[in-house]
């Protein structure tokens, strides 16, 4: 059974078709990248999967179960987590608190009535927070206010927050955007490391072709909302349609 499957997925915004009958399937343990010129519909696709947007047509199935009726937090509970393009963290809280919130979301279920129970009495939360921060190398900065972190660390925190949910599928929306080469390499290493440790499946949206060809088992190429090519890095490199799509487009 595929981990994630979309069938005939369509999204229209007024007159624009952002997602045009996309059929995608992602198997457990795969490392998949989603690429395409600007405006190809990559972010829209991600937003459909996370349920931030409602599809106009089509179905999305996770672990065999349709998720198009679910709320975003329910999708996270089911095992899909997303790391945002902009580092979407909790700025005025400490790094540790950022991780604990993510841990609460994961471990705690989506809602409980425990408003009179001390947070200290949830050792699981602290364990998950600690593991997460250690995995992304931010444990030493756990008391820093998140907004004071340098940008690269904010991105790591961002990934950490997405990981705390212990997802089966991690969606990453341009995780290395705006990073220096060193930071990029560190992030890529981090992603690979995390994947090993947690046997994660990931779907990566990226513009940086080097990374994409480096760390993907399979690449899906979108253009104008539809899938124009799919295959291993070598196959994609040679694909004429892909080359056409990028010529004249903005290539990273």
């Amino acid at each position, binding site marked *: 059974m595929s981990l994630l499957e979309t069938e005939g997925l369509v999204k229209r915004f007024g007159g624009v078709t952002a997602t045009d009958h996309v059929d995608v399937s992602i198997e457990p343990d795969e490392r998949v990248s989603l690429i395409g010129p600007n405006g190809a519909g990559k972010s829209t696709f991600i937003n459909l999967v996370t349920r931030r947007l409602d599809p106009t047509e089509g179905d999305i199935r996770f672990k065999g179960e349709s998720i198009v009726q679910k709320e975003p937090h329910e999708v996270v509970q089911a095992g899909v987590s997303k790391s945002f393009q902009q580092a979407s963290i909790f700025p005025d809280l400490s790094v540790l608190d950022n991780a604990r919130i993510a841990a609460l979301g994961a471990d705690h279920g989506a809602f409980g009535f425990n408003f009179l129970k001390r*947070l200290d009495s949830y050792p699981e939360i602290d364990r998950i927070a600690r593991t997460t921060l250690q995995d992304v190398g931010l444990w030493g900065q756990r008391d820093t206010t998140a907004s004071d972190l340098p940008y690269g660390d904010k991105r790591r925190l961002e990934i950490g927050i997405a990981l705390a949910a212990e997802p089966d599928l991690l969606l990453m929306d341009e995780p290395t955007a*705006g990073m220096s080469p060193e930071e990029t390499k560190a992030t890529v290493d981090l992603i690979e490391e995390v994947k090993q440790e947690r046997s994660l499946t990931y779907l990566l949206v990226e513009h940086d072709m080097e990374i994409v060809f480096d760390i993907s088992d399979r690449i899906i190429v979108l253009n104008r909302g539809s899938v124009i090519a799919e295959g291993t890095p070598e196959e994609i490199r040679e694909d004429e349609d892909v080359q056409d799509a990028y010529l004249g487009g903005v290539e990273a």
Partner: protein
Amino acid sequence: MSEDHQLRSDGGTAPATGEDATSANGTEKATSRVPGLGGDEGRIIGLTALAVLLFPFLFAEAPVISDIIQGYAGLTTLILIWGIFAMGYDLLHGFTGLLSFGHAAFWGAGGIAAGLLVEYAGMNLPLVLVVVGTVVGVLLAWLIGFLSLRRGGIYFAILTLAFGQMIYFTIFGPLGPITGGEDGLLLTIGDLFGVIPLNAGVPVLTPLGFIPSWLYLIVGIFVVISVAVAYRVLNSPYGLIFKAIRENEQRAEFVGLNVWRYKLMAFILSGAFAGFAGALHTIYNGAASASAFYWIVSGDVVIMSILGGVGTLFGAFLGAGVYLYMSNILETFVGTLWHVMLGLLFVIVVWLFPGGIWGGIRALRDLLTDLIGGGGSEPEAATDGGEPGARAPADAGSDGGENR
């Protein structure tokens, strides 16, 4: 625990990175504790009890101090009652980031429920009235929260405003005959437990000038309980989730939290405090009326909460104190001008001093600490100020992530 890290629960007097900088809406940073005081629950309760004990003395009796203040004991009870209301409100606004302009509905509902019980059911035992007020506050907040939280940001504020007025007009108009309309209901509140008159002095304490009456004592105890409850809520998973919602609501949703339900809970909790305080208000006044529902009263609690300091819990009592001082005592010196002054003060605080009075006190304390030689500062994680950009949108929390 790693050894290069000093735990904050040492009383928290040493400022950590960014802890005391106030952000655009004066929220406390970097800790799940209430700022300015140590993280110890027992300490907080103890200090609150002490403050409650000393308050009337300092306000009305103490030589020199009370002469300057010109206070009187009866006002202290009223300040505490509004303080409870404002503190509950702070949970919603300061900590969860939701600005409601309709909380008079719950305050009024608690008050009128108590009033109706006395008037029509002959039940005038204070403790019963308070319980009923709280329950009514909870139920009404559930209903209104359910309807108003469908949208965020300013629409939420406007919806709560509208529902609040709707209820005001219902109580005032069609229900006027039962609620006493413009004059309201004049009530005789029963004795505590049926035996102790609320206005009676408390043995030992009253003659010494500490606790003016049994009513004050009861209200004081309720203050301590309320503070303890509020503090506990903030130190529970809820507290962290509320703050997450305030900071970045969208992200909170996308880490798997059912944000809507938590917002509703924040709303209901604040409604509970409001109903509770509203019933106390009826007891204090010996009267209940529709005027408690008018939207300006909602504005009053907002003013108190902000004057005192948003997101500080204790600021609520300071804010209530300043407001009621101005409306009752300053008023005798400057007449209706007091209200203009209050408005000015409020605008200045909103514009320039988002930390409110509590924030000002903390800033002062930090200044003094620095001058005296900076107590044990915690080793800070190396933050050489990377890019200040990429910060999550400041109003993602209160906007409900919607696009306008």
